[in-house]
C-alpha cells in the first residue's frame, strides 16, 4: 500500500530498457488481484500493491526467457528468483527485480471460510492491520494477521532478498519456523496419513495448476505426467495415480521448493499440497542445512557433490 507511487516511478524509469514488467492490478472483484504485464508507461498506472497481491510472479520468468523482464517481488517471491538464478534457469542480465517489504498476504480461502462464499464481494477496505470485506450488503472486518496465508505467520524473509530496486523500508523481524505443522502430521500413524492423502486427492481434477503455478516447475510442456512418448504415467484417474503425481512433484522439488505456496493457492479444489513440499524441505534442511533461495551465493545441495556428506551416514552400517 505504502510506497506504491515510488514503485510506479521506479518501474517507469526502468521500463524503456525492458520488454515487460510484471506486477499486479485489480482483478474481477475487489478481493482479487491479478497479474499485470506492463509494457507501456500508461500500463504502470494500473499497478497496485497491497496484501491482496498474492501471486508469485517469479513463476512467469522462465516463460519469458530471452526477453528483458522486470518483476515485482515480495520476500518469499524473491527466493524463487534466487533459486532460478542458481539453477541457471534464468539469466541475471535479463531480469530486473523490483523488491518490496511485505507484512503478509491475505489468504482468500480463509476469508471464504468466514463468509461461506466469495460470490458477492462488493467492496474491500484495507488498513495497516485489518481488512473489511463488504459482501452481500454486509461488512465483515478481519485482522490481517488472522486471515493471512499460513506461510506469512512463519515468514523469515519479509523483504525481498534480491533486488535491483528496493522500494520502502526493509523489514527485519523474523518468525520462527520449526516445521511444527509437519511434525504434528508426522505423528499420525502411517495408515492415517495415507488415508488423509487418499481422501483429499480424490477430488483432484488433474488440471496441473499446482505444477504450472510453481515457479520451480520448469519442465512445463514436457512434464512426465502427460508425456506420450515415453508414456511414463497412466492416464487412469484413480486416486493412487493422482497421489503418485504429487509424490513426483514433491521429489522434483527437493532442495528447490521456496515455499511460496502457489501450488496450494492455485489448486481449485483446495488440496493442502504445501504440507508435502514442507515435509521435503524439512528433510533437506536437516540433511544439508539449506533453505532454497535464501542465499544469493548459495549452492543448492542437489547441484553439488561431496564425497562425505556431514549428515548422511553412507558407509556406517
Amino acid at each position, binding site marked *: 500500500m505504502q510506497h506504491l507511487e515510488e514503485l510506479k516511478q521506479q518501474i517507469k524509469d526502468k521500463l524503456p530498457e525492458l520488454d515487460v514488467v510484471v506486477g499486479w492490478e485489480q482483478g474481477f472483484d475487489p478481493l482479487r488481484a491479478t*497479474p499485470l504485464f506492463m509494457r507501456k508507461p500508461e500500463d504502470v498506472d494500473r499497478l497496485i500493491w497491497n496484501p491482496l497481491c498474492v501471486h508469485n510472479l517469479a513463476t512467469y520468468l522462465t516463460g519469458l526467457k530471452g526477453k528483458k523482464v522486470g518483476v515485482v517481488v515480495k520476500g518469499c517471491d524473491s527466493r524463487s528468483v534466487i533459486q532460478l538464478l542458481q539453477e541457471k534457469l534464468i539469466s541475471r542480465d535479463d531480469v530486473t527485480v523490483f523488491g518490496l517489504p511485505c507484512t503478509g498476504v491475505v489468504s482468500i480461502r480463509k476469508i471464504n471460510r468466514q463468509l461461506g462464499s466469495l460470490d458477492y464481494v462488493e467492496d474491500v477496505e484495507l488498513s495497516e492491520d485489518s481488512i473489511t470485506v463488504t459482501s452481500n450488503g454486509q461488512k465483515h472486518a478481519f485482522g490481517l494477521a488472522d486471515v493471512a496465508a499460513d506461510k506469512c505467520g512463519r515468514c523469515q524473509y519479509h523483504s525481498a532478498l534480491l533486488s535491483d530496486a528496493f522500494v520502502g523500508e526493509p523489514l527485519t523481524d523474523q518468525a520462527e519456523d520449526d516445521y511444527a505443522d509437519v511434525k504434528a502430521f508426522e505423528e499420525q500413524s502411517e495408515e492415517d496419513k495415507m488415508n488423509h492423502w487418499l481422501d483429499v486427492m480424490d477430488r483432484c481434477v488433474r488440471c496441473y495448476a499446482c505444477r504450472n503455478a510453481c515457479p520451480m516447475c520448469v519442465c512445463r510442456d514436457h512434464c512426465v505426467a502427460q508425456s*506420450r512418448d515415453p508414456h511414463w504415467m497412466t492416464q487412469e484417474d484413480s486416486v493412487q495415480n493422482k497421489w503418485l503425481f504429487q509424490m513426483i512433484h514433491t521429489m522434483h522439488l527437493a532442495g528447490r521448493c521456496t515455499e511460496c505456496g502457489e501450488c496450494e493457492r492455485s489448486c481449485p479444489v483446495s488440496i493442502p499440497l504445501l504440507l508435502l513440499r514442507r515435509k521435503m524441505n524439512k528433510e533437506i534442511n536437516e540433511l544439508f542445512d539449506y533453505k532454497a533461495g535464501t542465499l544469493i551465493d548459495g549452492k543448492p545441495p542437489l547441484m553439488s557433490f561431496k564425497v562425505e556428506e556431514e549428515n548422511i551416514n553412507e558407509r556406517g552400517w
Partner: protein
Amino acid sequence: MADKFVATNELGSWLAALSDQYRTLVPRREGDAVVFQPFEESRPVELDARPTKSPKEAVFPQCEALLTFAYNKNPETPGRVEVAVTEKMGGAPTVVVGGRPCDASGFFTFDRVYDSERVKDLNYLHRREQTLFVSLVCEKPATTCFCNWVGGGPASANGSDALMIPVDGGYVLESLTDSGGKLLEGLSDASDVQTKQAQSVKSAAEEAMDKAPDLSAAQEQLLAHFDDAEFWEEQSGKCISCGTCTYLCPTCYCFNITDEQFGHEGVRLRTWDNCMSSLFTMEASGHNPRPTKAHRLKNRVGHKFSYYPSLHGGNIACCGCGRCIKSCPASVDIRAIVLNAIATPVSQPEG
C-alpha cells in the same frame, strides 16, 4: 403436475429415497471446495455455496474405458496373433440434485457435437439419456456469473428435469419433464403461498442480473483478430496454461484417447483433455500448430464464442457459470477477453 415442497429437514430423506433408485449426485463440501459426490446420509449437502466443480462428470467422466483388448496366439497356428476386443459402456440411472441451471444447460453444448446426424457418441449418449437434473435456482448472481450473456438465466428451465426454488423453510420443486415428475412423486404439494413465493424468487433472480452486453459482433471480431498475435499475447500474458478453466467448465467436451497396454492385454482410455496444454495439438511429426499459450487461449475463447457458434446455429459454447474466472489461479476473465476482442479495432496487415 402441481408443484411440490420439501422442507429443509426432509431433504435428506427425499435424497435417500432417490438414492435407492438412482446414483444421486449432490454438492458436498470437501476442504474449501464444493464437489459433486453420491449422496450419503451422514454428510451434509451444500446448497448455499456454488459448486466448484461442474456436474459434467455425471455424463462425461474424467476417465472411462472405451474397450479392453488382448493379444492371443492362435493355438492352431502360433505364428498368428489374434486380437480380442471387448467394448465397454458404463453408466447407470443418475440424478444430479443441486447443480445450477447453467450446469444443466451446459450439456446442450455437448449434444450438438456428440449427438449429431453425422456422429453419435454412444458412450456419451448412454449416460446422457440416463441422467436427470434437478437444478437449484440461483437467488442472487455471483460477481462471476454471466449466464444471461449466453442465453441462460438464473431460473432457466432449459436442460433441467425439475427446478428447485429456495423458499421459507425449504424448497419448492417444479417438474419440467415426465422423468422429473417421477423424481418428485411422494413429496407433498406446495401450498399456494409457497408456489407464489417461488415465482417471486424466480423473477427477483432474473431481475438481479446485470444487463447483458451485446455479443453479436463476437463471432466476427474474434475471427478478425485471429492473426493479431499482439492482441492474444496481451490477453494471455497472465495465463499459466493449466487446465483449471477447462476441467471445471460445464461445456468443455474435448477428450484424449490413450491405449495402455500391460503385457498382452490393455485398455483404451478416454480422458478429459484441455486446449491449454501444449500436447493438445502436438502432431506426430513434432509440429505444433499452437506452440504458445497465446495460441492456446485464443483457441479457447475463439472456439467458445466464434468457431463453435458458426458451426452450431449461433449457439455459444459457454453457459456463463463463471467457474473459469473464479477458480483461475491468475484470475483470467473470459468476459473481459471477449469484450476486448469486440472493442479492439482490427489492425490491418501492412502491404
